[in-house]
């Protein structure tokens, strides 16, 4: 049932008990079997009460409402509840303004004030003193271990260098498929490596003992063990984070750059809150044609990961509609996301 003024009037006629009996029975049959119509009536009822309680009705509407609506104790309770709710919301609004002000004042309190505050009562003072002792002792042990580790790493590196005197170490910021070059390229850059036989044992030792990942990268790059790593034939799948409520920009800021040889893209859908257990996603193009759909999606920490195959994503604008499954198993609109694909 699409929402228009006529339907609103029909619902009001129903709520005011002004519908002829036969028509009413038909209407009742419809809303018991149609979840959407039922929701519409409930929303209209709520809004009618809101209009009345907040004094937004003209005298004629008010008198009509008073004559026809508060006919049962339950309805009167509902009106009273709404009145209390609106008052409470006004109160909460004022409270939240005060809380924000207080937060600003508290933030100005120094960290040292908070720390010294810990030692003011005997109970917390004991606990804090114990925590300080644990931290000091732990740091000392860590320092001792790091010293030994450093020496061993240096020793191993030195022994390596002695075996391969011409090898140079170049800094590698991160391992990514792009950074791992094909065998031939690597060899071309470091012609000496092929002639060097680094024992596998020694490599493992180095990987185990090197505490920082960047050092490990250096070793990985230069050992024959990693030369076996297959070069990826496809580009990595790009990830695009989308946020509910970014429709205002028309999705123009959400641009997905999809490499030609990528298998697909991962959309990271950020929700305002988790309102449903199971979600369904539908991808449509700018003309509204359904291109891809996926059921049974679950949100984790208000995020849903959705993989879309590359063949569904050509250059252009897309709309991703997310639906949540309600208690009665029906899909309700949960969020819409827009994005653009560049290839």
């Amino acid at each position, binding site marked *: 049932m699409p929402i228009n003024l006529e339907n609103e009037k029909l619902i009001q006629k129903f709520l005011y008990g002004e519908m002829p009996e036969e028509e009413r029975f038909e209407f009742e049959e419809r809303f018991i*079997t149609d979840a959407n119509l039922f929701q519409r009536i409930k*929303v209209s009822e709520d809004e009618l009460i809101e209009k009345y309680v907040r004094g*937004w009705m003209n005298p004629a509407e008010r008198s009509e409402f008073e004559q026809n609506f508060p006919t049962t104790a*339950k309805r009167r309770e509902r009106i009273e509840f709404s009145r209390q709710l609106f008052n409470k919301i006004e109160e*909460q609004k004022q409270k939240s303004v005060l809380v924000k002000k207080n937060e600003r004042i508290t933030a100005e309190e120094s960290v040292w004030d908070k720390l010294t505050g810990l030692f003011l009562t005997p109970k917390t003072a004991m606990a804090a003193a114990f925590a300080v002792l644990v931290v000091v002792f732990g740091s000392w042990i860590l320092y001792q271990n790091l010293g030994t580790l450093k020496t061993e790493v240096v020793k191993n590196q030195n022994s390596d260098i002695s075996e391969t005197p011409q090898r140079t170490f170049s800094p590698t910021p991160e391992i990514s498929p792009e950074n791992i070059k094909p065998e031939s390229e690597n060899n071309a850059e470091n012609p000496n490596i092929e002639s060097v036989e680094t024992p596998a044992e020694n490599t493992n030792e180095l990987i185990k003992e090197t505490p920082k990942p960047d050092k490990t990268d250096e070793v990985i790059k230069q050992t024959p063990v990693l030369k076996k790593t297959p070069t990826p034939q496809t580009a990595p799948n790009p990830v695009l984070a989308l946020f509910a409520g970014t*429709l205002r920009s028309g999705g123009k800021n959400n641009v997905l750059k999809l490499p030609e040889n990528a298998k697909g893209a991962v959309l990271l859908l950020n929700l*305002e809150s988790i309102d449903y257990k199971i979600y369904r996603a539908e991808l449509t193009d700018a003309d509204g044609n359904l291109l891809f759909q996926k059921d049974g999606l679950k949100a984790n920490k208000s995020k849903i990961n959705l993989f879309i195959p590359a063949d569904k994503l050509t250059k252009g604008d897309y709309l991703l509609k997310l639906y949540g499954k309600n*208690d009665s198993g029906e899909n309700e609109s949960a969020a819409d996301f827009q994005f653009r694909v560049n290839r």
Partner: protein
Amino acid sequence: MLKSLSAEDFEQFLKTLDAEDREQAAGKYIALRERLEKFFEWRDCENTEELTDIVFDRVAKKIVEGEMIENAEAYCVSVAKFVLLENRREVFKKSELDENSREISSEAGQKDNKKNEIQNKQLKCLDKCMAKLPAEKRELLINYFDTDEKTLIPNRRNLAEKFGINLNSLRIRISRLKSKLEKCTRKCCEKT
């Protein structure tokens, strides 16, 4: 839960709602229950929960007796209509009796005191229930109703846009939230 039916009978009733998925069936039962309660409420009945129980009792009994029901929801509507008519007759009889034995009510002052007491209790319960709501939902409720008549539509449309949903979905979401809050408040008042 139904009044006079065994757990097995109830399970059979659930199967009529969804034979394959029990969880789905339970969801459908809850949704149908809510609609039937509103059906009676919009028909000016006071004892809506009791009347809904009667409907489910009767339908479940029919199923247990071996009646084949294809559309349980539609079947429940037709039973609900009979239950409504029966209830009207009873209410009418009762009101006639009440009319005959009506006594002059006790002092008005006492009534006012009781009304104030109830209102205070409701306010405290509403406070508790509001506090139980997740912060973002409480915030949504506050933002939704933080408007006046003139700015009502643009404000709510903006809020819906912020959440990436249409205005209609937002209205439904608020209606549900309000309903939950109302139920929570009612239950809290009954306990205290």
